């Protein structure tokens, strides 16, 4: 009996000690969180975390940062992240975020809504020069938060050899939904899979835009999933899938549309400009051409993908960080990045220089005029993942039910 009381007492004491140490830690955090981050002027030591697409990007950003550091007398450390979202999440939780980091457009609202980002973008010179669709993507609650780094859009990529082999010429490139279907039937008759399309909203969503619909209203406040426009788009995609005019990459033994396309398992695919680099690296012999996506009932539509240069609201060197972003988003610097790792500049004034340098990329750049950015609202990640699940089962399910479910979940998430 006595043994037990001693044991309990000791255990209690140990727990109390441990809890006390935890409480001390949180007390310290309290003070730091309450006051705005102390700003330091003069030379800074910037921590920059990037979600790099590869060595080319890492090197290019490191070089640019070094050039800036030398000019400004500050220090800039560029770290490529293994898993940007997870590393940022941990850094924010640990109250020790990097000063500057990439923010993916689809996660932007999550970060902005919790106050992790500094809304600085309007302070940049020539802030209105960024494409309007990109500005909208990084605007939350009426504030333009962060400068778009670059962007990509979706376009129709055609394998020229297979196209010619099927007896099709340049005039056959589809520009409407009806033509896409007609040309796909011709290709199918020749025994090839016409179209490889990714099984997520990031590809199928383009059809929603072409039909005049989208998942949320432009301000990201209302759910607009369950509309006749969206239904029309899904029914069209479903008809393509059911007739095997379009197949998902996994059905073609590929991880993504570009791989299926590169292996010659599909004549067409819908992908972004990153496909250029991938084809060059993995399938250098494939001859292809890029075209704007076929227009739907409500005209042309595509999706844009982008990152912005986020600045932490807890950074000690906000002014220097803004200065850094300013240097990274000049026309010249963006062109340097474009040449280094094939991204498109986010400034309109860089468009001419870019199309001159990469004439074959016209369809991608033109997409900026009618592109729809990712859903710009917080807490939508699991809802959209659920929608992706629905899209994967599109051949065997009812599009109307799918949209009703998306509508219900979106409403719940937007609150």
């Amino acid at each position, binding site marked *: 009996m006595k043994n037990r009381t001693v044991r309990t007492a000791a255990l209690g004491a140990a727990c109390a000690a441990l809890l006390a140490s935890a409480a001390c830690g949180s007390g310290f955090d*309290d003070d730091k969180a309450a006051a705005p981050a102390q700003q330091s002027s003069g030379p800074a030591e910037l921590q920059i975390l990037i979600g790099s697409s590869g060595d080319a990007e890492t090197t290019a950003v490191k070089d640019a940062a070094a050039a800036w550091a030398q000019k400004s007398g500050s220090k800039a450390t560029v770290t490529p992240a293994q898993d940007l979202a*997870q590393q940022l999440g941990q850094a924010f939780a640990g109250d020790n975020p990097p000063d500057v980091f990439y923010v993916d457009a689809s996660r932007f609202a999550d970060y902005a809504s919790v106050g992790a980002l500094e809304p600085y973008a309007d302070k940049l010179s020539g802030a209105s020069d960024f494409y309007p669709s990109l500005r909208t993507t990084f605007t939350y609650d009426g504030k333009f938060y962060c400068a778009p780094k670059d962007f990509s859009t979706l376009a129709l990529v055609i394998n020229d050899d297979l196209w010619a082999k099927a007896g099709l010429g340049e005039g056959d490139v589809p520009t409407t939904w009806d033509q896409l279907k007609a040309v796909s039937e011709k290709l199918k008759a020749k025994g090839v899979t016409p179209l490889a399309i990714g099984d997520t909203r990031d590809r199928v969503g383009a059809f929603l835009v072409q039909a005049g619909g989208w998942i949320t209203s432009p301000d990201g406040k209302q759910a607009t999933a369950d509309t006749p426009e969206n239904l029309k788009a899904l029914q069209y995609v479903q008809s393509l899938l059911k007739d095997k005019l379009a197949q998902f990459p996994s059905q073609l033994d590929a991880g993504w549309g570009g791989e299926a396309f590169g292996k010659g398992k599909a004549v067409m695919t819908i992908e972004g400009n990153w496909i250029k680099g991938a084809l060059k690296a993995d399938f250098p012999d494939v001859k292809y051409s890029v075209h704007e996506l076929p227009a739907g009932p409500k005209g042309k539509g595509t999706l844009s993908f982008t990152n912005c240069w986020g600045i932490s609201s807890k950074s000690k060197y906000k002014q220097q960080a803004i200065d850094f972003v300013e240097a990274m988003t000049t026309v010249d610097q963006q062109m340097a990045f474009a040449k280094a790792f094939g991204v498109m500049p986010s400034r309109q004034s860089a468009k001419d220089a870019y199309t001159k340098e990469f004439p074959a990329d016209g369809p991608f750049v033109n997409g900026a005029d009618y592109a729809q950015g990712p859903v710009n609202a917080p807490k939508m990640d*699991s809802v959209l993942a659920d929608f992706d699940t629905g899209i994967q*089962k599109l051949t065997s399910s009812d599009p109307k039910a799918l949209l009703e479910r998306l509508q219900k979940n979106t409403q719940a998430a937007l609150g």
Partner: protein
Amino acid sequence: MADTAPARATRPGPRLSAAVRENIAGWLFVAPVVVILGLFMLLPILMAMWVSLTDWNGQGSPFRSGVPFVGTENYTRLFTEDGLARQDFMTSVRNNFYYVAIVVPAQTVLALGLALIVNARMLKGKTFFRAAFFFPSVTSSVAISVVFLFIFANSGAVTSLLKLFGIDGPQWFSDSRGVLHLLLGGLGLVDPADPPAALTDGGPFGLSWWEWLSGPSVAMCTIIMLVVWTTSGTFMLMFLAALQDIPVTLEEAGMLDGAGRWQRFRHITLPLLKPTLFLVLTLGLIATWQVFDQVYVMSQGNPAKTTLTPAFLSYQTAFRSFEYGSGTAISFVLFAIIVVLALVQRWIMRDRDPARRTRRS
């Protein structure tokens, strides 16, 4: 203690009885372990428990004053609120239930079978077989998962092998159809494309009966095969150790009494293996409810959420959607599930009739 007894008489100050001093010494000896366990296990668990009661968004410390306290809302949302959170969680529980229901019996039987084979006295090259069967267990699960990805790819070894026999195999990793659905459809009982309204109309926890009855998906089956194959080696080792502990005399006595092979296995070997069987089943149960790495490497919950498991969902909710409260709540519910099932299993495998046993022995 006897040595210190005379010394006590000469020492000034308050006297401590031998028992108390022994206690203090004992606590001093275990103190390092208590502190380490407390600091790195108990404290994080308590902290996680706190996070599961808040709506912490991952900004700053979860112990700040501004973090919203939501009580048990993160838990009730998993069970009572009709929404995506409950649907995802219940889907993951369903998937994991089928996974456990197949993996645990299968790996136990396989492990026991392998142990019996490599324990046989007549077997030649015993060491080779023991090593071969144990090999998958010592290989990294991530490496094996990647190899399985290749084997089960649409143009991989398994599909090609099936083709040799004229079977058009499924597209393993993109096939979200439930096996039970396929079975019911194959028997002609139900049409999977148009299930009866009685099954689709309602069901517990936001999933229809039809969805609950899906069985593991084809994609999940590949993970099941992988896990059964990799873990049976470990458990084989445990059974083997227990088998070698069984005295040969018992076996010989059985033979003298005229017992056949099966009778000897059923009435001598199996009862003596019971403690090991309990160990294997318990460890299997715990490990299978926590399956994470295979799902993370091979499928990330796809296709159509049919390989989503509570452990993976918890990770996804916390680190992808920044809903740390919900994520930790899921992990605590998972913990509760494991504890309850382990207790149930203990109760099932208890000694039915202890009185008779003691009389006999």
